[in-house]
Structure formats: C-alpha cells, structure tokens
C-alpha cells in the first residue's frame, strides 16, 4: 500500500509549483482582476506545456500522463493551481479533452486534442440554465434537423465561456441527456459574461438560438455526462484541497505571529482547537480527493460512491475552512486588500458547480440504500 504520490508525481508537483511561484502566483491573478482581465492566455499556454491539459489526452494526440493514473496526476496539478487560485478552466478543459478522447470520432480527436494539449484551445463545458446536471431543469434542447443537430436554449455559469474556442454542451435530446461539441464562435451562439462572486474566475452564459452542428457532434448521452462529472469532481476537489491547504498554512502563520493582548493569537486555546479542527478538515479533503481519483482511475467498484463522497464533503469543508480563516484573521481579513476574501469567494463559488453537495449526497444515499438493503437482508 502506498496511498500517496509517486516520485514522478512529486517531481511534477515541484515543477508546477516553481512555475506558478515565478509566473502565475496569486498576486498576478489579483492584478489581473483589478484590471478586469482574468485569464492570461499566454500563461495558460505555458501551463499547457507543463501538462495542465494533457493528462487525459492520448500520446498520439500530443497528450500523455505521468503515471498510469492520469486523474491522480491531475490531482497534483489541480492542487498546485488551487493554491494560487489560478483562474484557468482546468476542470472544464480537461473534462472536454477526456470526453473527446473517450467518446469522440477520430477526426474530432485529431482536430481538437492536440490544440487543447498545446493550450491553444480553451474548451468549456456547459450544463443546464441553472448550472445543474439536472435533466428536469430548463436548459438547452436539441433536435435532429436536416443540417445535423439544432440547439436552442441557455446554459449558465459556464467557466471561461467568453474566451472558449469549444464548448461541450449538455442538452436534452429526445428527453435524454446528450453531450454535443460546438466550436466557438458559432452561428446562433451568443456568449455573455457573468458578474461573478468569484473574482479570480470568469463565468459566462451561452445562449443557443437555432445553432446547428453536424449530427456526429453528439458524443453520447448519460455515460458521457457521468464520466464528465466524475472527472470534474476530482479536479474541483483537488483545486479546493490545494487552496484550503495554502490558506490554512497562511492562517496558522498569521496567528503564530500576530500579537493581541500581549500574546500571539495562536497561543489562545480556543483558537488552537479551531486550528486543530481545520487541520483535520484539510487532511480529510485531501484523503477524499485522492481516493476518488484513484477509484475512478482504477475503476474500483466504489468509484461512484467515492465521487459522491468527495463531491459532497470537500466543497463544504473548503467553504467552512475559508470562513473560519476569515473569522480568525479578524478585521484585517474583512478588507479588500487581504487575500482571504478571494478564497472565501472561490470556495462558495466552487461549491455548487458540476453537482451541488446536496446532489452528491442524494446520489450517495441512493447507492447506500441499494447496497445496505442487500447487507441487512
């Protein structure tokens, strides 16, 4: 048993951390957001060279993972990007790359995958008009038409929609889920930028008005969506874990240094116990994330359960931790200048995406109910 990263993955971590420290630290993202420019495409391409978008792409299409566990590799990357609150659409671009690699036609693979791997194409992924993976929600409807497949409706809360060259749209087709590739810009597709809670990331709304794509743009149905949610949940959890980890470290450092009433704040027992709880929380976030990555990569029987576990636990722990960190920072944490609110915003903004915690818990209960009915019978 080695429930930890391999040496190669450690090396990957170091190289990514070095790159981010030098080129893309949080301070750079901060400057960008004050200037209203969020994602620096040049830096994103540099990141792609380090493999940010390559792990789930086969080598023949210029991709390649570090180990035989590409999602575990991605966890390393995502943790590091999370530590800097990197604005990049790591989740959606990898989700789309994975979907094309697994479910796409050869032509789609050779058209898109190398350009995604090189960071030239930002690919994004849309769900319903409510941002949920909910077929019952209003969203985008597709019909088979003469020219192929025609899309109508709106998808919201789509990461980096404004800049993207490609969207994998989740639509309703014949009453079932379908995932459709749409290159952007495209006739009948309008993209509007959202004003968001998370200042380090940019989201958008995509409106399809009779947008027609070839019939083979439909990559598949529920199986594509399910896989996408698994991949997204793992990456999102890892980004959250990295962000939680650095914020926790910064909080401990602050409390160790800062003096109040003649003592460092970190010497007060009530504060110490809360920090102990946060340490536990970070460790649990890590663990839930790593296990989900491993279970999906290895196709463990409990992979779906592991995804639901991470998908429900991690975002709420992350939001709790950022809130505690803000509170423990006191007045300084309430200011615009301090970074802690960027973490608070990120955590709350991430929390409901690609399946809310309550949605994952409902799934988990269904699995548990089915499994324990057997166990107790």
């Amino acid at each position, binding site marked *: 048993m080695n429930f930890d990263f391999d040496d190669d993955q450690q090396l990957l971590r170091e190289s990514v951390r070095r790159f981010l420290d030098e080129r893309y630290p949080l301070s750079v993202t901060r400057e960008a957001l004050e200037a209203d420019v969020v994602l620096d495409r040049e830096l994103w391409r540099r990141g792609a060279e380090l493999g940010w978008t390559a792990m789930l792409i086969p080598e023949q299409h210029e991709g390649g993972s570090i180990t035989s566990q590409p999602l575990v590799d991605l966890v390393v990357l995502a943790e590091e990007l999370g530590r800097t609150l990197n604005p990049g659409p790591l989740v959606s671009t990898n989700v789309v790359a994975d979907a094309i690699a697994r479910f796409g036609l050869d032509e789609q693979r050779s058209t898109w995958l190398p350009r995604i791997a090189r960071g030239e194409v930002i690919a994004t992924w849309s769900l319903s008009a409510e941002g949920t993976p909910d077929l019952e929600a209003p969203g985008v409807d597709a019909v088979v038409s003469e020219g192929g497949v025609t899309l109508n409706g709106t998808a919201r809360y789509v990461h980096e929609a404004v800049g993207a060259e490609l969207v994998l749209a989740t639509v309703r087709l014949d009453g079932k889920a379908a995932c459709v590739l749409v290159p952007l810009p495209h006739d009948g597709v309008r993209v509007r930028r959202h004003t968001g809670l998370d200042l380090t990331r940019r989201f958008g709304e995509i409106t399809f008005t009779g947008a027609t794509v070839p019939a083979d743009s439909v990559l598949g149905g529920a199986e594509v969506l399910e896989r996408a949610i698994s991949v997204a949940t793992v990456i999102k959890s890892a980004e959250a874990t990295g962000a939680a980890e650095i914020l926790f470290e910064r909080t401990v450092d602050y409390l160790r240094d800062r003096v109040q*009433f003649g*003592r460092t704040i970190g010497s007060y027992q009530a504060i110490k116990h809360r920090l102990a709880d946060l340490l536990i929380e970070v460790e649990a976030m890590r663990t839930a994330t790593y296990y989900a990555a491993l279970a999906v990569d290895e196709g463990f029987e409990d992979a779906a359960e592991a995804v639901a576990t991470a998908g429900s636990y991690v975002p709420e722990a992350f939001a709790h931790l950022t809130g505690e960190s803000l509170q423990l920072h006191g007045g300084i944490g*309430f200011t615009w200048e301090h970074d802690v609110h960027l973490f608070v915003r990120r955590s*709350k903004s991430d929390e409901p995406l690609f399946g809310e915690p309550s949605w994952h818990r409902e799934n988990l209960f269904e699995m548990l109910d089915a499994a324990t009915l057997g166990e107790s019978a």
Partner: protein
Amino acid sequence: MDITTSEVPPQYDEFRKSLQAFIGAHCPPLEWKARTGIRVPEEEHDVALLRQWARAIHDAGYVFDRFADTPGDPYEQRVLEEELGATGIPYVVGNALVAGAIKMFGTPEQRSAHIGPMSRGEQIWTQLFSEPNAGSDLASLQTKGRLDGDEYIINGQKVWSTWAQWADHGYLLARTEPSPGPGGITALILDMKSPGIEIRPLREMTGTTDFNEVFFDDVRVPVANVIGAPGEGWKVASASLATERGGVGRNLSWETVVRLADLARTTSRRGTSLGDDGSVRQQIAAFAARSRIQDHLGKRVETRAENQAVTAWDAPLMKIWFSELNLEMLEYGLDLQGPRSIVAEGDEAAYDDGFLQDAFLYARAWTIAGGSNEVMRNLISERGLGLPREPRGDA
C-alpha cells in the same frame, strides 16, 4: 409577565398616508444602492442628497424622538420609522447615537449646537468607540486623552467607524489622564476637521467602503467638549447605547428568514420545488425558530435594562446570537441557490440582484466588528461566569 406591543390604531392611517405622499414627493434619487447592513454612500453627490432629504423631513415637521425635547406620540414615531425604513435609504444622515448622550448628559450649549443641526442633516456624526484590540470592550480602550490646560490631547486609533469619511463630528471615547475615576473613560465631542486626525476609508471584502480607520496624533479637544463629566464615559456610552439597544439586526434576521422561504419556494431541483424538500423545510424552520428567539431574547434584555439588572452577558449574547444566525442563514441562502449563487449584483441572472451574495460577504462585519465573537465569548466566560481571565503575555 407582560410583553405586549400594541398595534398602531386605525386613526393613524391618515398620518401614514400623508407621510407616504411626502416620501413619494421627496425621496432622493440616489446612486447609492440599498444593501444589507450599515452602508455608506461612496459619492459626495449622494451625501448632499441625503442631507437635503433629512432637511425636507425636518421641515415637513416630522421629528424623531432622538432629536426632540419631549417624546413624540409613540404611534406616530412607529409609523414614521416604519415608512421611512421601508424606503431602504437612510433618513438620519450619519451615526446619530450621540444625540441620546447629548440629550441626557450634554450642556445646554452642546444641545443647541448639535441636536438641531443633526436633525436638519447639517451635521454628520461618526461614532469612535471600537479599537483594533478592544472591539467594543470599553475596559480595554487604549486611545488616550492627556489633559493639557483646558484641552485634552488625543492619541490613538479607532476602527470600524461608519460615516467617518463624511463626518463633521465624532462621538469619541478616550481614556483620559489623570484618570478621574473608575475606568477613567471620557466621552468627547470631536471636530473631525481638527488637525492630527487621519481618516482611512477601508475598502472591505464586499467591494464597498463602509468603514474607516481613524488615527489621532496629538489631536486637541477642548474640555468644554466633554459629554457629562470626565471619567463618566462608560456611563454615557452605556446610556446612549441603551437607547438604541436591541434594534440592530432584529428585523434583519427575520427578513432573511422570509427571503430564504421565498427562495426555496421559487427554486427547483430534480423537478421538485425546494419548498417541498424535507431538508430545506427543516433547515429554514430551524432558522425561523432561532430568529424568533432572537426577538424574545431582546425583550429579556430590555426587561433587565428597565429593571437596572443588566448582566455582563446581555450585549455579547445578543451580538453572538444575531451575527452567527445571520451568517449561517446567508451561507444557506447561497447554498439554496445552487450554481446561481455564483453570480452577483449587476448580473441579470442573479437572484434578487445578488442581495444575498453581498449580505453573505457583509455578514462577517457583524461577527468581527465591534469586538469579535471570540472577544465576546471571553467576556461572557470571564465577566459573566467569573472564570479566570486569559493571562496577558506582557504580564
């Protein structure tokens, strides 16, 4: 046991109607947007409009108890506060807490110099109580006033002051020396234009600028500006706070309960309204219970104040109860929205124009400002329960 607050009788309907007409005619068209909490205009233009608005209210003959020599008709006062409150914009410009202090403890000169001008919007005040290490725990105040002839020389720092960036005067608490009594704290009227005052507006995590830090470097204040007597600052502050007690956040928390219920009703998941989801119903009902208890706790505290039986935990308890309930509700208000919670004020897709998102961010002002809830819990356990005080590191 008696807790009754009577309904406003129907004969006040006419007063209400004429007031509504007045509001319709004079309510100012501000850039400033109504949000949760104490929010201060960012534009000079808005401040000017608010001064005019206060003047119009005054000139129309509407007088608030806090500015009046004799209490007004209580039902008229209630209608006045209700209708003006419903506009969502301030009807008293600045922080008028000092009015109660001046009315109770001020000299005739102080009364005539300040009460009228405040009611007419001519004077904007700020409150200068909280300090970085003390919050509202007056016993820990560190701002000093050294007596030098007939002036105090003030040095120190205040935080969490709303309106300071627009204020003409400040209601200052300082530890005066030589210390004239227990506590040795004195309440002073401060001319905000005095040399040595530096005001640093803080941009908060909400993106707005509602609070200020205020620094004093040898600021001179005439002894004539003492409210009450030197060393009576604690008494003066407590009395003026008591006149405003219970108000903060009382309706705010119930309003949020109502917002959550609305939100649940109008949001669906998996094809079902969240208003029909057991977990949502249980959670909102739990908040509702705590919000109602907040009202009743406020009445217990009021009763103790009326019976001169205030305890060391009354104020901290109310602060903790409201601020943590408020925060939890707003966190939940984001959760209930699902992905929609990620868009904020100004986005056409935002629920209620992002009110809950802003309120969620602002919620930490209540848990941190005016003495963090951690300091409040120290107060309760040390002063309320008599447990040993935390050792100071410098002891």
